[in-house]
């Protein structure tokens, strides 16, 4: 029987980084992936003369060589930065909200962002400046927390990062109100909320401010060859470091020893792998619901207590005219019915009512991403309930087209661009598509929701106690850093390094 120090289940963003960390720590590592490609959602696909990005809008916290963000630092340590051709995203976002008649385009760079906000909302400068001061303190506090593996000294925290602790238990809107931020400025600042998928009355301020800061402080980047380039670069690195990777191979069981700790992994073809350590880049719902015969009751209870975050839907268009010709002016759009995020969240429960979209025209960041005289766009939304579970197979394609049609109509109406009559390629991914490729329950793409009680901070603080099965750790959107590209990479970094520590302790 094959024996490994560690098995990583799933070659998504978290799993790939975990595997590299394990190998760098000297662990003999096997990475198994049920699909035939690495990356999970981080991939691309060809249709005609277009190569579509499957999911990445822009990678935050990457920065440039002389102003590196945490993700670049991580990629440097992993040894993959140089394997990828990067480009910088020109501007942060354009947000359009109907109820408020809001239409604002925001730049990267903290002072540019504050200046632009002051233009849109005179008098907003003091509160927005305070927001970024808080956000920066949060960043530094998190860096301290990571440097001590989550085992922070409360006294040191209060002394050095008092604001972090004082604002740390509040929601986004609670803190913005305390900062006396004008409503319109709040509305503009809250545009990114759908990237985290919990509304701003519930979403932890720490989490949101941390993400906004990661975008605005250092800008955002994108690999030229779509996220597939990152996924292949990470895969390449796993192989360079001597790791084994099996594609088209599903891990179906995690077996346990008498004490209930990890003893092995069974693959789809029946192959048994002996290992005492697993990093699962998949949902605890899947691991404890299907992969373990005797999951501890505490794990079952904890897993049942959690709430699935948004289920994904994306439409991809290859258009036979340039962005200029079509009137698509920006790279990244957020189109909302209202900036009352709690009300908006409610409307996102159903296929019928949800008309939110986060939309990217990649050519606005990278004009050469498609042939001259063409452009590519992708439109994404989230469903905050299992409404797609009500769709029968024979209704599936019609329902996808119904939503896609609404997306095109909304984009045209809100921005004035003209897309119809120029669609050369179209591809639509629904929750079933995400369920198919990545196996996530209900087609969830954001892991567990960043609800107030289950937000970033308590997850990080409880990293050491969250999972009680010896040898089992998690990476990816369901784990301690929550969802999103950079978060998933960091979760893989943390779980990979911690597993190296576990192995060393065992001697």
């Amino acid at each position, binding site marked *: 029987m094959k024996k490994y120090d560690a098995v990583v289940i799933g070659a998504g963003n978290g799993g790939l980084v975990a595997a590299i960390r394990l190998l760098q720590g000297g662990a003999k590592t096997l990475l198994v992936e049920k699909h035939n490609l690495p990356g999970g959602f981080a991939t691309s696909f060809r249709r005609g003369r277009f190569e579509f990005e499957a999911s990445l809008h822009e990678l935050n916290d990457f920065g440039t060589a002389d102003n590196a963000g945490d993700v670049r630092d991580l990629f440097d340590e992993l040894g993959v930065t140089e394997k990828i051709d990067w480009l910088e995203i020109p501007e942060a976002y354009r947000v359009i909200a109907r109820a408020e008649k809001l239409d604002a385009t925001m730049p990267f760079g903290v002072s540019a962002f504050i200046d632009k906000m002051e233009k849109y909302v005179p008098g907003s400068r003091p509160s927005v400046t305070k927001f970024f001061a808080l956000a920066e303190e949060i960043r530094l506090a998190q860096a301290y927390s990571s440097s001590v593996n989550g085992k922070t000294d409360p006294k040191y925290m209060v002394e050095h990062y008092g604001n972090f602790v004082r604002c*740390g238990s509040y929601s986004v809107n609670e803190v913005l109100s305390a900062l006396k931020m004008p409503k319109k400025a709040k509305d503009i600042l809250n545009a990114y909320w759908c990237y985290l998928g919990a509304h701003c009355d519930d979403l932890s301020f720490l989490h949101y401010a941390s993400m906004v800061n990661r975008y605005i402080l250092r800008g955002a980047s994108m690999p030229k060859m779509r996220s597939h380039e990152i996924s292949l670069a990470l895969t390449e690195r796993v192989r360079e470091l001597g790791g084994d990777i099996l594609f088209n191979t599903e891990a179906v069981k995690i077996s346990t020893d008498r004490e209930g700790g990890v003893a092995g992994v069974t693959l789809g073809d029946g192959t048994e792998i002996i290992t005492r350590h697993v990093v699962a880049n998949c949902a605890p719902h899947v691991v404890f619901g299907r992969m373990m015969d005797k999951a501890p009751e505490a794990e*079952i209870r904890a897993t049942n207590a959690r709430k699935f975050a948004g289920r994904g839907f994306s439409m991809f268009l290859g258009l036979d005219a340039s962005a200029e010709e079509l009137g698509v002016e920006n790279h990244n759009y957020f189109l909302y019915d209202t900036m009352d995020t709690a009300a908006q969240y409610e409307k996102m429960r159903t296929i019928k009512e949800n008309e939110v979209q986060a939309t990217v025209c990649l050519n606005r960041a990278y004009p050469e991403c498609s042939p001259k005289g063409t452009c590519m766009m992708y439109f994404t939304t989230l469903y905050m309930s299992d409404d797609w579970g009500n769709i029968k197979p024979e209704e599936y394609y019609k329902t996808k087209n119904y939503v896609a049609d609404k997306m095109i109509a909304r984009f045209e109406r809100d921005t004035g661009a003209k897309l119809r009559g120029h669609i050369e390629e179209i591809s639509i991914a629904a929750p079933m598509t995400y369920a198919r490729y990545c196996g996530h329950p209900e087609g969830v793409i954001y892991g567990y929701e960043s609800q107030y009680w289950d937000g970033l901070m308590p*997850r990080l603080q409880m990293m050491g106690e969250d999972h009680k099965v010896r040898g089992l750790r998690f990476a990816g959107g369901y784990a301690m850093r929550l969802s999103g590209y950079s978060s998933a990479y960091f979760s893989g970094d943390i779980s990979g390094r911690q597993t190296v520590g576990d192995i060393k302790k065992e001697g």
Partner: protein
Amino acid sequence: MPYVFKKQIFGFMDLLRFKKMVPKRRRKLAEGSAAPLPETYRVNETAKILHPGFQRAVLVSVKEETADTKTFTFQTERPFYFRAGQYATLGCGVEKSVLSRPYSISSAPEDALKRKVSFTVKKAGFFSGYLFDEAKEGDVFTLGDPSGDFCYEPLKDAKHVVALAGGSGITPFYSMAQAIADGTEDFRLTIFYGANTEKDIIFRSELDKLASEKIRVIYVLSDEEKEGFEHGFIGAELIQKYVSGDFTVMMCGPQAMYAYADGQLAAFSLPLRRVKKEANCVGVRDVKPQTFTLTVHIGFETFSVPADARETVLTAMERAGLRVPAKCRAGGCGFCHSKLVSGKFSLAGADKRRLADAKFGYIHPCCSYPDSDMELIVPKA
């Protein structure tokens, strides 16, 4: 003085709140239900019907359509669903090889929900020859996922589709016609169906029965002049005789038909988005025979197999009896995506790989011919 955040009247209350976050989460997690977690979910179950993966399919009937085509109908292990126009692979062990070929599905999507699916196959090569001469009712095959984008797209295509079908290239359009008739699809379909002689027409009576306001079939015979049939090839004049206004062209047939149609369609100045072609399997190439050695890593095993320079890398692996992924056999679907460790190859036709695949040395064996000894890492089938 640096900015101090405060929400409550007394700052210590903010600190207390922060301290309560962990105990609160601990309590919430402990309060979760002890009921078993679900083993599956509705969306995931629907996904299994839309994308069933490989499944067993029992051959339940064989019908002779013409001298060189037969329709093979299977009962599948599980219900599934597809879009009219899609293909699926059909495979089984033949001699020492495990083979599969992609065929357009000729039955209606609705039938698949009742576990019935049909392929209408022309006797042309090794596998179709096996099907034609050897396969019998009760035989068990492996059916692949319904795949491909040779389908009507309501948000993109014109409401009127002009189908150019050559020989057994009628199969996806026959599926579409059934889907229009039963209400699954909603578009107008005008099929120009080219065959050598009247005897070579497949589904003649079925198609005539399906004719309606939405479905029209024009039979075009190349080798016969007969009343009630058009004669010659499907050209611009013929299309103009029957069709006007905005339309999308979909063609399925041999490569020679595509070349001819492209020339004829120039008269209509159609934009790229108005023309779709179903891809054909990559065949042999015309070079002098030469044998290379492929070193193939699959899972934990390594194999050494011969490869004929005239055939694709995929064919070499299949001939050697290796179980390797294969689907479209035309370079486009990426299912056979494999890492090239070393060696040289030539592509059949256009490079349909992702950009990063070329950069990091991945190939699609189904459309790559060996130009030297090669070493590959291939996912297991």
